[in-house]
């Protein structure tokens, strides 16, 4: 009975489906194999990774590499990174949301000029020296604020937010105004609740961007107590192997443990906002 109700699949269609499954499985493998290699190498003993072998089947299991990384000033740097990521994301959203809302309002005087000035910063980069001199002039050298304040607004993220907010029906905002709401109330009571998906996506963008900050930390921070995780981890990855006596040689397994611990926080956050991620980006991206 049930067989009768099924749509008959032609041999060509079946062959196409099989081809699809094989092809997509291979594509999946291309992404999965390196991650699998990173994972099992990070748990491997030195002897199994010497000679630069590419592991696909685990040969041994040890937590020594993770122990080494966690005992390399990891926790202090981790706290710094968390602070920079949380405070930075919060500040960035605090600036980007109202700015995006304001720029999405067609009646804003000089809207196009503001927008062009902001977009200009995407096209021209003055380079590290002027950047350094500005940060120094602001008295921010060697302060955590130097990693956050100069990069607290991303034009790319602003455009996504602004475009999304432009798609909210004007009539909705007008009726709120008729009910006596001012712009701030409209933003917080109407626009933000309607923009959760794009806010989630942009929050993740900011968070990952702050989490991965490296160059600014190196340039503006002199006190190693304030180094973030990426600096400490990169330093471990590129540690000199010419020293002797302390068993200092850095093999691939330690480097892979560094990678796993470096990307772990972002991997943990991602699934929670994944559902908002694609929809938020799509809606923000299509409206001009």
């Amino acid at each position, binding site marked *: 009975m049930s067989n009768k109700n099924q749509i008959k699949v032609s041999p060509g269609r079946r062959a196409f489906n099989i081809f699809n499954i094989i092809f997509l499985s291979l594509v999946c493998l291309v992404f999965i194999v390196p991650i699998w290699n990173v994972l099992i190498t990070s748990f491997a003993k030195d002897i199994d990774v010497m*000679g*630069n072998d590419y592991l696909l089947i685990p040969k041994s299991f040890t937590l020594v590499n993770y122990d080494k990384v966690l005992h390399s000033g990891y926790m202090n740097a981790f706290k710094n990174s968390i602070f920079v990521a949380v405070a930075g994301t*919060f*500040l960035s959203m605090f600036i980007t949301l109202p700015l995006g809302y304001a720029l999405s309002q067609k009646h804003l005087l000089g809207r196009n000029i503001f927008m062009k000035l902001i977009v200009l910063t995407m096209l021209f980069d003055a380079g590290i020296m002027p950047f350094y001199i500005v940060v120094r002039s602001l008295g921010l050298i060697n302060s955590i604020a*130097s990693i956050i304040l100069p990069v607290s607004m991303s034009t790319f993220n602003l455009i996504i937010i602004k475009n999304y907010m432009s798609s909210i029906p004007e009539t909705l905002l007008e009726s709120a105004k008729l009910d006596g709401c001012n712009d701030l109330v409209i933003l917080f009571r109407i626009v933000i609740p309607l923009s959760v998906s794009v806010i989630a996506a942009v929050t993740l963008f900011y968070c990952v961007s702050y989490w991965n900050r490296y160059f600014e930390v190196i340039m503006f921070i002199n006190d*190693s107590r304030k180094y973030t995780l990426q600096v400490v981890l*990169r*330093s471990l990855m590129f540690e000199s192997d010419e020293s002797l006596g302390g068993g200092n040689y850095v093999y691939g397994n330690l480097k892979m443990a560094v990678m796993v611990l470096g990307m772990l926080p972002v991997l943990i956050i991602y699934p929670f906002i994944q559902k908002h991620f694609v929809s938020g980006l799509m809606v923000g991206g299509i409206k001009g």
Partner: protein
Amino acid sequence: MKKIVFALLSSLLLFGFGFSLAAEGKGEAKDSGQPEIVLATADNTYGLSTDPDLQNEITRMIEERTGAIIKPIIPPLASYKDKIATLINSGDVPDVFVISQAMTAIPTMVAREQILDLTGFIAASPALSSLNPSLFQDLKIDGKTYFIPYNYPKAKAIFLRKDLMAQYGVNLSEAPTTEEFAREMKKFVGAGIVPFCFPKWVDNFQYFYNSFGAWGGVYKKDGKFIDGFQTPEMMQALAYVRSLYQSGVLNQEFITTENSAMREKTYTAKAASDIDYVTNYVNYVQNTENARKPTDMHLIYELVGPAGKGGALNEATQTAWVVSSRTKYPEAAVKVIETIVMDPQIYPAFFGLGVENAHYTLDENRMIVPTDRAANSGYKYTLNYLSDSFINIDLKNLPFALSEAMEKGLPLQKAHIDAIQGHLGPNHGADVPVGVSMNYDRVAPTIKSTRESIATKIVVGSVSVQEGMDEYANFWKSIGGDSILQELNK
């Protein structure tokens, strides 16, 4: 409305916290009349720990010895070069700092008047003037010295596994001829191991160029600047390296081989030999044991070419201390460097071990044991200073015990370092003065990359030696190479 107020207050708090952190960074200078010296070095020195309190122990020691107030900047080694370049170019030049790739960096910094002439200061210091004058020779500019080295120049030799030599009946001296080397190394070909693992750093070909009296680059020969790449000697040298590649002696994937991969292949006996710093000898002893393929290494200091020429790859001074030309306290700055480089207690603490009871303690067998604090800050001591520093160390009376491998390997490493001094090849890296020919200064990096790219093409057989040389000659013409040489020879 509550949410809005909450958001605004939170933001204010955040700003407040941010700016309090900003203010924390400024600090105030002490007004004690003592000279204040800003010192920059990478975190593979300064006690080898990233813990600021442990770093302060080193600062305290230097301050006690020199009477200066030290303000250290200690970025990670991987980013040190970028950091120091930014500091220098922004005008925040540290009073004293370490520079890497001194052979190319010092002439440039001298031309830009960024570093101080130290000739007089070195002559006035009994400790520094006692250093072997040859240490300064390769990098003197117009007869003046602008740097202070802190260890013996590094040299590279070929490291050959003795177990595989015995197994395959390979017989080579410490200075065989190029012909002997090619013949004997062929015995490894087809045995399932890489006969000679070479890294992707093509400038290491200079080891072979030395055997033919060739130099890869513009240099001074008989008082006149020439382009060393366009010489018959270079053609001979490239033909030789090409023959090693074609016969399977040189690893076929060298253009993608990292130093670490090269070493690991030799440790694990997947390669019979490689090229490395002599100061890494003990690493080979230790790591071949770790790989459960223990063996001693045979070192080939030089390959003697058909005309009797040859020499180890001489990197001369790679890292050195320099003093900013803007420092307010030049005497104090030099005193700080002198203390770090020559003081028998500061040197090991700064470059090797850190401070006893802060970075490490000694166990009942007098073995070094990192303290918990040090161990949690990435501290890893090194004993390199025992073989490559200028301070006199009695290896038989060290304040700590050595592991068995170190006990055995260290005297051998020292012997190899001494032995290679007599085999050092030339180093013309600082021959060309900066600022004499603006055209040369502009195109020098392109000349280097083109030269190395064409040398690689010749070696792997993409082009014949003659075709490669013709391609280089065309490039040379396109940049006006001959007129550049004329400018340099004026």
